[in-house]
């Protein structure tokens, strides 16, 4: 991918990673050196390094501990675990020990929501933490044991699949079996097949996959790229992690088939840094494919082709799950979403036509080929055939991974996962809907994405229930369950914090709008809220939604607005009528600095 006379910027993040892993920080000198190597200004590089939260400009400890900060983790006992870490290490969150051995940091969801509380130590997973386990881990690390030797192997927790002939993903697979089809089909026939299968983007955007492939293949170019989006950052999602653990061969074969269909010669897997522990096995599997002639030059097919795949490591930025941000990140830039002037299939990676597909989408392709289109179309619903992977976490009897046929009623699904006393559900993660009992009769069908603008058309939840019952519920993959004991506002605050931390900052409405919404939640939480605050939340959300550049800003306030609509009783009891006085303004609090200064001075006189 090297263009003439120019250093290959796509290797930049790998170079930074090497130094981060070796030195546990990126020093001033490193910045100078790398900037020179890549022929860029120091500050441009500084901008890239400071964009990703796993790169540190100051020492982060020989053992860098990242404790998951998401709400499910908190509900599973994170506060005690954090306390145990702080006590065992003698440092507070966000600090490193005096000898530089340990650093303790928080990070958003690390894709282990069904085995929380969990953490990463030097990017090795440690799950189901308890204070005892924490003390044990720290003790063993102090004794010189390596994190890679004592870490856990994350459980796949596959709780449910349909009967074998109706299962798509989680059933035995014969490696290479789908690649025989390369000799049977023309590339255009593969696209046609995928189009007919009605497969849509499983990352949650539901764009028709076949159509995307077709667009890309139709754009004239000397090179085309296929990128697998394995930057599974949506809190509560871990389906891609399980797929990569159980069936990485499906992904690789899906990518090979896509490359053949579209005419791509280069592929990449953008793997989130949180899943770094999966990299080694993936790489050796890729090598196996290479050795068997399925990757590399002259791959056997009806029309022989060249194609290879490499892995690009992310470095901690939720927004990179957005396809144009992901492409920028792969190009060694700040992971900011593009202006949307072009689709990636027109101008993507390095300005060339690029297809970005989710792991689950790509994994479905070899299965559809092997299963046959007719059989596949009998699964699920007519509009959305097939099955869907759902990552379930939170308050239920059986958290874990579920493969269900599209069309299952939410109520039925809740029974399946043994959720009792459910008060609300964050469906599709933090950027998704907040569901209440009013939604339980809807079906998980991938058919209809309810924009929360539509909420305004309903008088109350009763009317909503009537009209929405049976309506489709688009599922991206994350289902977080909260029972009646949970504090809705506290959960919404965690969601709001997440978006403030993860907004890339490129456009005003998302950067500052989310910050201001967060302040509103604080105000309500502290009991200073008035009715007009809710009105302002609704108005401001709408502005953020309609003017933000990418999906992050468009979705960040959905759950909050859903909750306001669906749980008037929660907000009703804590809000007061509108007044002419700002109750949040407390004169004693506002003069506290002055009191301190004067007290300190007068005590000097004594």
């Amino acid at each position: 991918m090297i263009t003439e006379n120019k250093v290959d910027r796509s290797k930049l993040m790998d170079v930074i990673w090497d130094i981060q892993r070796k030195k546990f920080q990126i020093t001033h000198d490193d910045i100078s050196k790398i900037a020179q190597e890549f022929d860029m200004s120091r500050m441009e590089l500084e901008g890239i390094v400071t964009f990703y939260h796993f790169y540190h400009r100051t020492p982060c400890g020989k053992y860098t501990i990242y404790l998951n900060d998401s709400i499910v983790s908190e509900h599973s006992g994170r506060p005690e675990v954090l306390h145990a870490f702080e006590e065992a290490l003698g440092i507070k969150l966000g600090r490193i020990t005096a000898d530089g051995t340990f650093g303790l940091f928080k990070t958003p969801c690390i894709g282990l929501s069904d085995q929380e509380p969990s953490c990463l130590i030097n990017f090795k997973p440690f799950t189901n933490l308890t204070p005892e386990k924490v003390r044990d881990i720290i003790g063993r690390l102090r004794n010189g044991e390596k994190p890679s030797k004592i870490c856990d192997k994350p459980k796949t927790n596959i709780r449910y699949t349909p009967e074998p002939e109706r299962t798509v993903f989680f059933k035995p697979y014969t490696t290479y079996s789908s690649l025989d089809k390369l000799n049977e089909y023309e590339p255009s026939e593969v696209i046609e097949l995928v189009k007919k299968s009605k497969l849509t983007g499983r990352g949650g955007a539901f764009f028709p996959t076949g159509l995307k492939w077709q667009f890309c293949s139709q754009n004239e170019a000397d090179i085309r790229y296929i990128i697998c989006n394995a930057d599974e950052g949506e809190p509560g999602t871990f389906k891609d992690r399980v797929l990569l653990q159980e069936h990485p061969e499906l992904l690789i074969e899906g990518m090979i088939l896509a490359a053949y269909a579209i005419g791509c010669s280069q592929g990449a897997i953008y793997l989130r840094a949180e899943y770094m522990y999966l990299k080694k096995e993936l790489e050796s599997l890729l090598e196996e494919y290479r050795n068997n002639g399925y990757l590399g030059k002259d791959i056997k097919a009806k029309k022989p082709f060249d194609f290879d795949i490499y892995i690009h490591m992310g470095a901690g930025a939720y927004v990179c799950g957005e396809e144009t941000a992901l492409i920028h990140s792969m190009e060694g830039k700040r992971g900011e979403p593009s202006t949307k002037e072009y689709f990636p299939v027109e101008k993507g990676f390095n300005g060339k036509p690029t297809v970005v597909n989710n792991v689950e989408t790509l994994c479905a392709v070899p299965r559809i080929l092997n299963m046959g289109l007719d059989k596949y179309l009998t699964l699920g619903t007519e509009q959305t055939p097939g099955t869907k992977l759902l990552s379930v976490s939170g308050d239920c009897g059986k958290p874990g991974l579920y493969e269900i046929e599209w069309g299952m009623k939410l109520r039925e699904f809740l029974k399946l996962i043994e959720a009792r006393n459910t008060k609300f559900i964050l469906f599709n993660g933090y950027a998704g809907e907040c569901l209440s009992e009013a939604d339980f009769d809807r079906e998980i069908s991938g058919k209809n994405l309810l924009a929360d603008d539509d909420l305004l058309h309903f008088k109350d939840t009763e009317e909503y229930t009537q009209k929405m019952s049976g309506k489709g519920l688009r599922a991206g993959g994350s289902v977080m369950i909260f029972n009646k004991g949970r504090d809705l506002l506290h959960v919404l605050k965690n969601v709001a914090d997440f978006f403030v931390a993860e907004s890339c900052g490129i456009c005003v409405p998302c950067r500052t709008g989310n910050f201001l919404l967060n302040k509103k939640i604080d105000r309500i939480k502290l009991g200073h809220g008035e009715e007009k605050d809710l009105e302002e939340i609704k108005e401001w959300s709408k502005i953020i939604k309609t003017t933000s550049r990418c999906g992050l800003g468009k979705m960040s306030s959905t759950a909050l607005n859903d909750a306001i609509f669906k749980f008037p009783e929660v907000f009703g009891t804590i809000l007061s009528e509108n007044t002419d006085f700002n109750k949040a303004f407390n004169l004693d609090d506002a003069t506290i600095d002055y009191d301190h200064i004067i007290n300190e001075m007068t005590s000097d006189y004594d």
Partner: protein
Amino acid sequence: MTKMVNLKIDGKPIQAEAGMNLVDVAKQNGIYIPTLCYFKELNPLATCRICTVKVNGKEITGCTVKVAEGMDIEVTTPELLDNRKAIIEMLYAEGNHFCPSCEKSGNCDMQNLGYDMGITVTRYPHVFSDKIVDFNPKRMIMESNRCILCKRCVEEVKTKDGKDVFSFVQRGVKTRVQIDYEQEANLTEAEAIHAMNICPVGAILVKGMIHEQPFGERKYDLLGKDIKPVVKKDPLRQRDGGKFIVATTSLAGCFGCHMSLLDIDTELLDVLELVEFNKSPLTDIKKFSKQCHIGLVEGGCSNSENVEVLREFRKKCDILVGFGECAIMGGIPAMRNFVPLKECLDEAYLNGVTTEVGADVVPGHEDIPKLLNNVYPCNEVVKIDYYIPGCPPNAQHIWKVVKSILLGEEFSIAHDEFKYD
């Protein structure tokens, strides 16, 4: 030959070259789409989001749209106009924009848009975050307080060998533009001035070019529209002998707004026909003796007494009007919000150049009002009904607002009456 396409903008049928930029097409046809970050057709930045329009019912930034056959474009719906206003207000709330002390006042794209949209106050609370002012570069000053992160400088200014001079660093609310000192030193004087000129606000300044003469061309002096404040429908009723009762006060202000009030000159006689002043520095009445129709508040809240007076005004006045920038957004006193209170006091009473030799006391007594941690705009303490912007507001402007509110009349304010820079 270029292909022509037919499209509609706000219902008006328009023909244009296929693939042309929507903002330019609109401009050619006399339709104004406000922009802030947009300045080069070839490379729209789409960071400010102000040009958001609806294309076939879907919101999208106008600067990234290439016109095509059959497009139905909405530009000036009430919702879109409010979105634009909201974004400018958000920029004002997010940054620290003190126009009276800004070198680029009068030549600032954002200030002009503020006037143009009739913004008197931002609907959002001011963030007042501490931002970096970087004097280190050889030739330039980077004033992050005023930066709106439009990315013009990042994309446009490069050295001869193609390296970036300005870069975004950090992420989210912490994002800021940082100058690369080494590369900046390689710029020519002309290139540095170009960087300053493309900055739509006053964030990039070239040293030595700031105080000698008024800065820039004041390109916006002749532009602008009148504003029409929304007035509540029910007129106020006169009390006691047919006169309206007005109270005024100056909180953390300089009394400049009151001086401006006196500039009503001979019309003051008309004013006195219509109104009676109650508590006010003008009458020297210290305590409210009755409920008032209108309270005029100058200045923001800097100490505990300001807060108490303001709260009393809210109780005793049916309508509260904030006049002058300090009341509206904190103004000049709020510039101390970025310095710890201790440092402010030390500078004022202990270490400053004008302090008495040997002074070692910061005044503290129960009779002295306590300073607040921050200076607050009035609307963050109580509800304010109307705002009269300006530093100070024009006398005619103040009187027009007061009179119209009292009589419940619709009114509009001419552009030159509310433009103060």
